[in-house]
């Protein structure tokens, strides 16, 4: 009795799977960003990056040599099908994220999903995708537990909080080894999920690395940061690591100058330091600060430089790390869809599981893209870039450096 059922089931499944292979001329992907609310700047920049990504994939771009799918128009394995992205605003609300994910899957019948910035929204949105069996590629949400729930349909390209913490600790250890005085660290993190998870990881990892670590937690919405700066001035750490958003980081730089206190080195954890308004606002005060980024535009002639120019032409701003990670995730997803040769979610899932991209095939400075069983990219990594003049230059690790590290920072002096 069992066999015929199994047989019929197999046929049914095969038939069901076979249908989508007859390629439609577009592949639909749903992308969820925070386009309104407090995180709108990040969401909007990410959306612009995805739009650029679509253009790169759908039209032939022979100048972007080495970047998978860029040189051809559309997805070759699907008969040159174009990618269509449905942009959605999740408003930073976990419930809206859930609702819109459901809509994208059931109503728009997207082949895969992309998102999402807020870790809170990532948690709820990926759960819907898991229930419906649609791959969800995370571009930039860093909370560890997103990929720790045994989900089979969630893939995360970006490095996560612990990776950042490891990178900072590694960097500071190397500095110490070269004879620089790096003993005490103070972490200033804002107190929403981003700052809490990244700040907490740094404190934990750096302590294990043998550093004397202190932590100052604050609310990024405050109009005044002098109390924190005064505390920092009292603690006098060798290195201060800032984990915060835009307005607060700009205020920190100004207030540090006002109170005339400069640590030997400041490391900014992306976000605020990478915001395009950071350099115009406080670039002259923050000379020599380090920023975490897996993105570097690189030298003229390189693929990344060309991408940055294209982005600038669209938005008038440089591509930053956050948007870069989104775009990279989108390219990884497109590559998987192409390899799957199908818009069937299960095949895309399988292709994602088999992803093995080399550094040369990436626009971001990861060591590659390869997912473990939990869906986390085990080759994700990051650079440190340093503000020298009006631009950030990659300074660490040395293999990727475009400029020499300046130590200590010079700030406003």
């Amino acid at each position: 009795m069992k066999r015929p059922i199994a047989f019929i089931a197999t046929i049914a499944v095969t038939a069901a799977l076979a249908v989508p292979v007859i390629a439609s001329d577009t592949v639909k992907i749903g992308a969820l960003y925070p386009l309104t609310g407090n995180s709108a700047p990040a969401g909007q920049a990410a959306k612009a990056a995805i739009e650029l990504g679509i253009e790169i994939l759908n039209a032939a771009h022979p100048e972007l040599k080495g970047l998978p799918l860029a040189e051809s128009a559309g997805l070759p394995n699907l008969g040159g099908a174009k990618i269509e992205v449905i942009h959605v605003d999740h408003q930073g609300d976990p419930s809206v994220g859930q609702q819109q994910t459901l809509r994208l899957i059931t109503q728009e019948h997207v082949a895969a999903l992309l998102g999402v910035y807020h870790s809170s929204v990532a948690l709820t949105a990926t759960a819907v995708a898991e229930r419906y069996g649609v791959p969800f590629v995370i571009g930039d949400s860093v909370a560890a537990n997103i990929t720790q729930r045994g989900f089979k349909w969630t893939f995360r390209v970006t490095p996560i909080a612990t990776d950042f913490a490891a990178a900072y600790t590694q960097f500071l250890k190397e500095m110490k080894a070269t004879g620089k005085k790096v003993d005490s660290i103070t972490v200033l993190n804002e107190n929403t999920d981003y700052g809490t998870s990244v700040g907490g990881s740094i404190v934990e990892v750096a302590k294990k690395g043998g550093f004397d670590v202190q932590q100052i937690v604050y609310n990024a919405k405050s109009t005044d940061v002098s109390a924190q700066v005064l505390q920092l001035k009292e603690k006098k750490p060798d290195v201060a690591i800032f984990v915060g958003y835009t307005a607060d980081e700009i205020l920190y730089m100004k207030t540090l100058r006002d109170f005339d206190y400069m640590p030997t080195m400041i490391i900014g954890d992306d976000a605020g330091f990478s915001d395009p308004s950071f350099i115009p606002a406080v670039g002259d005060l923050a000379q020599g600060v380090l920023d975490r980024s897996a993105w570097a535009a690189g030298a003229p002639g390189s693929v990344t430089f060309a991408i940055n120019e294209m982005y600038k032409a669209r938005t008038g701003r440089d591509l930053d790390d956050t948007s870069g990670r989104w775009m990279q995730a989108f390219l990884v997803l497109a590559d998987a869809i192409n390899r799957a040769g199908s818009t069937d979610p299960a095949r895309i899932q399988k292709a994602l599981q088999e992803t093995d991209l080399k550094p040369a095939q990436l626009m971001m400075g990861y060591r590659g893209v390869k997912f473990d069983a939990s869906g986390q990219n085990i080759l994700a990594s990051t650079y440190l870039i340093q503000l020298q003049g009006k631009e950030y230059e990659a300074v660490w690790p040395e293999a990727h450096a475009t400029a020499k590290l300046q130590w200590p920072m010079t700030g406003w002096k």
Partner: protein
Amino acid sequence: MTRWGWLPLAAALLAYPWAVAGSDSAAFLQDMGALVLLAAISAAAWNILGGYAGQISVGHAMFFGAGAYMPLLVYQHWQMPPLLGVPLGIAVSLVVALVVGFPTFRLSGHYFSMATIAVAELVRIVVGNWDFLGAAIGLQGPARARGWYDLIFRSAVPYYYIFLGVLALLLLVAWQVQRSRLGYYLRAVRAGERAARSLGVPVRRYKLYALMLSAGFTSLAGALYALKTGFVDPDSGLGILVSVQMIIIAALGGAGTLLGPLLGAMILVPLQTATNTWLGGSGSGLTYIVYGGVIMLIARFEPGGLLELWHRQVTARLARPGEVRHAA
């Protein structure tokens, strides 16, 4: 409302998930139906205090949050089914309601509103920094169902009917309240505390009753939210927008009426979803321009809520001389 006027409404609500089942976007519409009911529950719960008794709380998120946090807390720390946290959440809400209500009910009007804002913000900030409660990162429910008792469903339909059941219960309670001495006293308190006292209404005590009832059901709404969403953090559970949403929905439909909150939810939630779906992707912020504009216009031109429109026509008919009818 005529005696059996609610029947078609009830039938429509019962049939809704089936009615849309054939549609292209069945799952999405069913999910939205559940969200409408959830919003209606919160708003109807708020309405008991804010509508009937006229005490405008802008801090009901603290009760909603208590309801949303407890189920996920018992799961997070002890792997218990979230369902077990529901009564706990209600209990916490009632305690909070007593603690908040007792002193603040000496205050009237805007002072009460400000006090509730302040307490709710205080709770949000404290929870946002309290590791046991997940701090800023929030709490998660089970990632996948371990059994029916986790109440995790792929489809929104079971949630829809659970929410509908709770809403029916709440409306039944509200209806009973409205008809009973409690309801009359609450409306008297809203209309004028001094006059109410002069007629023997123990104002503070009745306000407290209304608050407890309102807090309990708001907490239940929070619990249902957490069960469906599987996640809560300080913003989504305790943020000021959670409170404001309840007020807007109740006021839009008609505060102090039985079906106003449901009507408000039936209009506002689809409006929010539709504006976000159609306009949100552009990223221009048009979603909120439209949403804010609509709210403003309704407040400007129909300050008593949309149910008032209907009322004006019906009361004109009902208030024939010699015939005694109830307007509300």
